[in-house]
């Protein structure tokens, strides 16, 4: 039998970038929490994610969900070396702003503020977009993320030179590349499998 999408005709999608907490409604039916198999539960990595429609929907293919989640966590949370967490979150927020993922941008803009304590700059990134002046070091990271988000990819030696001039070493630059590249993955799932919804 052909399956059907789930629509949310009463939802008014947020129409601007925001720091507010958003929720997300799936367009395909996720498995019910009680119906998750053991393999699907394991693929969520964090048990609490069984409450999330997004992660339950992705658990339909548990092997790729688990590898995706572990890749995500290590790129962003492993600060044993490389770029400070704040600037990884900046790369994620800038990528999401440029690709147009209002949901992802809200989450990672909040994280960027938490770790950088620079709420005005992060707010300016959301409001004015990726050309906002955030100071040269952040501008260099945003410009690299924007060039990586382009298809075909526009990232070139000039971006590396600018990042080095802003005192990022090669391990830091690898983290910019991985953080920005990863959000091209995350944005496409969030944008194409459901829609954001305002909370409260």
């Amino acid at each position: 039998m052909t399956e059907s999408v789930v629509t949310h005709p009463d939802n008014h999608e947020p129409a601007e970038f925001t720091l507010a907490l958003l929720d997300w409604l799936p367009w395909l039916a996720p498995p019910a929490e009680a119906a998750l198999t053991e393999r699907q539960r394991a693929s969520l990595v964090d048990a609490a994610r069984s409450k999330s429609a997004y992660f339950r929907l992705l658990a339909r293919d548990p092997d790729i969900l688990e590898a995706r989640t572990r890749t995500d966590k290590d790129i962003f949370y492993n600060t044993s070396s490389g770029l400070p967490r704040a600037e990884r979150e900046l790369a994620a927020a800038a990528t999401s702003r440029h690709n147009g993922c209002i949901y992802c941008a809200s989450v990672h803009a909040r994280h960027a503020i938490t770790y950088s304590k620079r709420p005005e700059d992060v707010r300016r990134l959301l409001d004015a977009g990726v050309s906002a002046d955030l100071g040269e070091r952040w501008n260099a990271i945003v410009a690299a993320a924007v060039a990586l988000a382009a298809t075909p990819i526009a990232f070139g030696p000039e971006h590396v030179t600018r990042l080095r001039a802003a005192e990022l070493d090669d391990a830091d630059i690898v983290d910019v590349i991985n953080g920005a590249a990863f959000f091209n993955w995350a944005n496409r799932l969030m944008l194409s499998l459901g829609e954001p919804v305002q909370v409260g």
Partner: protein
Amino acid sequence: MSDPDVIDTLAGIEPDSPLALIRDRKPVTRQQAQASYRALFEPAEPGDVTLQERFAAATFVAGLHARDEIAAFYAAGLRRTAPSEDFVTALSKEIALGRAVGPYGAYPKGKLSAEDVAGPVYDVAERHRTVLGTRLTVAMAHVHMLVFHPRDASAAALQTLLDAGWSNTGIVTLSQLVAFLAFQIRAAAGLRILAATRNVP
């Protein structure tokens, strides 16, 4: 597993080179990116998406990114699924027809509408549809949208896939595959540039 690391292969990173050593400092990132590749292209069970569909979609995605070295890698995977010559030719012509510059697309109506960027809405050429088959023809239109203008995504687009015989789970797999490649291709392309512009000590 001792299988070659695909991102290193696609980025041209040699073992023990300075960038390989930087990547080695984050073994989980390396291993899980590789595990992601294997989950999509060496699945224990192909489930709702055949290996040929997976490699055809990947060849299309890499081609749309104009990364010849990466498209060649996935085209070699496609060859292992024994496609007809006509199939391979049609796919390669569709890559040329589908080329665009992204990201573009429209926002929900409002303040952000000023940032809407127009761009092509792609569909497989009529003359290639029979050899590519209905499922892949419909999937390629979706893949093109995911690559170039994901903010135009909609529930209606997913319904089109369902109507062409894709299952809910198959759509999740296809979406993960395209989205993963958007990551992998950027990681490899970025690392390749970084390796080529290393500081002379």
